[in-house]
């Protein structure tokens, strides 16, 4: 570990209108760590992701990516600094083919930017990288299918693929296995493990087996506040977590 955290949140707050949804969250995610955020529905987990990735502006506090303030940057700038996120509700390009979806996700990091003088069919290295990723996601057979026609689990896999494609070193995954069957979940976990090798992973997850399987550190968020943070064994034993979290889940 380098000492400087990959992501540092300091007393981050977010209001929607008069309601404070994120109520002073401070959190460090170390480089190379697999960090899971758990918490009941409506706790503000997705909102927290939206703040980190620049989708919404924060109301107060600060967010740093490897020591650099990012809380006032637009999403594309944050992404270019090496932070990439997935969405809880699948967000792909439904009318483009699966291949095109992935290739788009690779474009910026490969330096193509806004070029209108490169012909994509001739971009050998780019196309090969896309094909490789496609095989990695087990979507090679779906190469030319419009992404909107993929099955749900396949769309989720594509979503993960598009998130990691650009080679970002910090990956945020929002409920990557939500709505999947048992076997699909197992497959997704293996995929996540594979594609985030050596990267910093921050994920929201409801499935406790997945959380305890994947995460090095767990943070529990309840009503916009962190009530506990630590290694899985400590979280499992934490009485406050059990009460607050399980209580809220039951309610």
């Amino acid at each position: 570990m380098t000492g400087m955290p990959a992501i540092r949140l300091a007393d981050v707050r977010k209001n929607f209108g008069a309601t404070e949804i994120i109520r002073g969250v401070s959190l460090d995610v170390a480089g190379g760590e697999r960090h899971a955020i758990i918490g009941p529905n409506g706790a503000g987990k997705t909102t927290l992701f939206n703040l980190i990735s620049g989708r919404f502006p924060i109301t107060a506090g600060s967010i740093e990516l490897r020591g650099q303030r990012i809380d006032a940057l637009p999403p594309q700038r944050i992404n270019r600094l090496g932070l990439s996120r997935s969405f809880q509700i699948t967000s792909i390009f439904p009318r483009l083919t699966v291949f095109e979806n992935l290739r788009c996700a690779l474009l910026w990091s490969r330096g193509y930017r806004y070029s209108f003088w490169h012909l994509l069919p001739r971009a050998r290295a780019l196309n090969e990288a896309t094909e490789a990723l496609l095989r990695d996601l087990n979507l090679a057979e779906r190469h030319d299918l419009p992404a909107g026609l993929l099955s749900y689990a396949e769309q989720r896999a594509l979503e993960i693929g598009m998130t990691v494609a650009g080679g970002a070193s910090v990956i945020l995954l929002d409920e990557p296995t939500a709505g999947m069957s048992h076997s699909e979940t197992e497959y997704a976990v293996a995929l996540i493990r594979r594609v985030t090798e050596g990267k910093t992973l921050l994920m929201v997850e409801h499935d406790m087996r997945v959380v305890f399987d994947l995460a090095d550190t767990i943070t529990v968020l309840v009503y916009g506040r962190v009530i506990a943070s630590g290694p899985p064994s400590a979280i499992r034993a934490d009485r406050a977590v059990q009460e607050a979290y399980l209580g809220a889940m039951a309610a």
Partner: protein
Amino acid sequence: MTRRSAIIWLTLLAVAIVLPWLFYDFAHHRPAGFVISMLSQMGMMIILALSYNMLLGQAGLFSLCHATFFGFGGYSTIHFLNAAGAGELPVPTELMPLLAGLSGLGLAIVFGAMATKQRATAFAMITLGIGELVATAALMFHHFFGGEGGVSTDRMIDQSLFGLSYASGIQVYYLIVGWTFVAALLMWLQTMTPLGRMANACRDNFERAQFMGYDPRIVRFLQFCLAGFFAGIGGGLYAITYEIVTFDAVAAPLSANALLMAYIGGNMVFVGPVLGAVLITLLQSGVSLMSNSWLIYVGVLFIAMVTFAPAGITGIIMAHGPVWRAGRLSRLILPYLRLVVPGIATVAGFVGMVELLSFLTIGAAAGKHLVLFGSPIDANTAAPWAIAIVLLVVGTVWLRFEARYFARVWESVAGSVEARA
């Protein structure tokens, strides 16, 4: 470029070159004049429609000021030609459209910076305002736009790369063919570039594009500028062809026409707007000569397309692809045939009603005689009205019936094709 697409492009080019000679005017020993002028018009409209589709189809941007860049390219070209004629601008005629394109590009940079801050509906409103602004200004300012009378020039500036005088329509036509080919090819290649692809991506889901490092606003802006560039080229050809550019070239109806061509041809396929441009140009020169009710037909056609075939004509054709590949197209022949008679009856009844009505209120006042489907008709007798009404009512009811039958067959055929795939 693959070999197959190269063959298609070259074939189209060859067709465009040969086409005027198929309509040879033996009395004057040259290709028929009206054919040349119609084909020339088609060339410009193809550029206009294709460049418009860089916005509508590729980027999902509904622009209402595309004629602004076309017209501005035209006005500029008039001034360039005048300067060249006076010996102040040593640019050959062949390269004038390039200057026109650069003029369009310049204006598109200015207006694009404002309009592309927004997308979707707000973008449409802003471009409407921009289009009105320029059109109104064109009527008011004389130095550049010439006011109501427009500006005119003489295209025979005696500066040609190939030693051509451009005195005859056929020479101008080949200039148009050349530029249309080049512009269309470039626009086609543009769809395969990173910018072109990200324009598609931002159209489908601009937020996701942001989280992949792209600023959708810059994508929109660049796409808008390129579209303005190509529209300008079209305007340059317009100026060279007609040697006069008036307010019509920047006004809203031409912008609407660009939209119409792209949409009716089909905005999801590259060739869609080409088809639309050819079709609308043909229709316009045919129908608007015969009837002054052109706009009502356009409106009805438009609404019918939006409601029933949002992917345009090419979309309808493409939908048959899987059926055709599965060898099931023959099952659709009968349902199609059954649509023909009620379809014709409905259209004839509708056209009859519209023409009779508009004759009573407009045509008669202008002292014209009503001629429908080739025969003179007295609108003051009951018979034509009765026929039109019966055709319309019976046709509509029958058409609905047949359409349901068609839909049933289509579902079953498409369903079985899908099941096999």
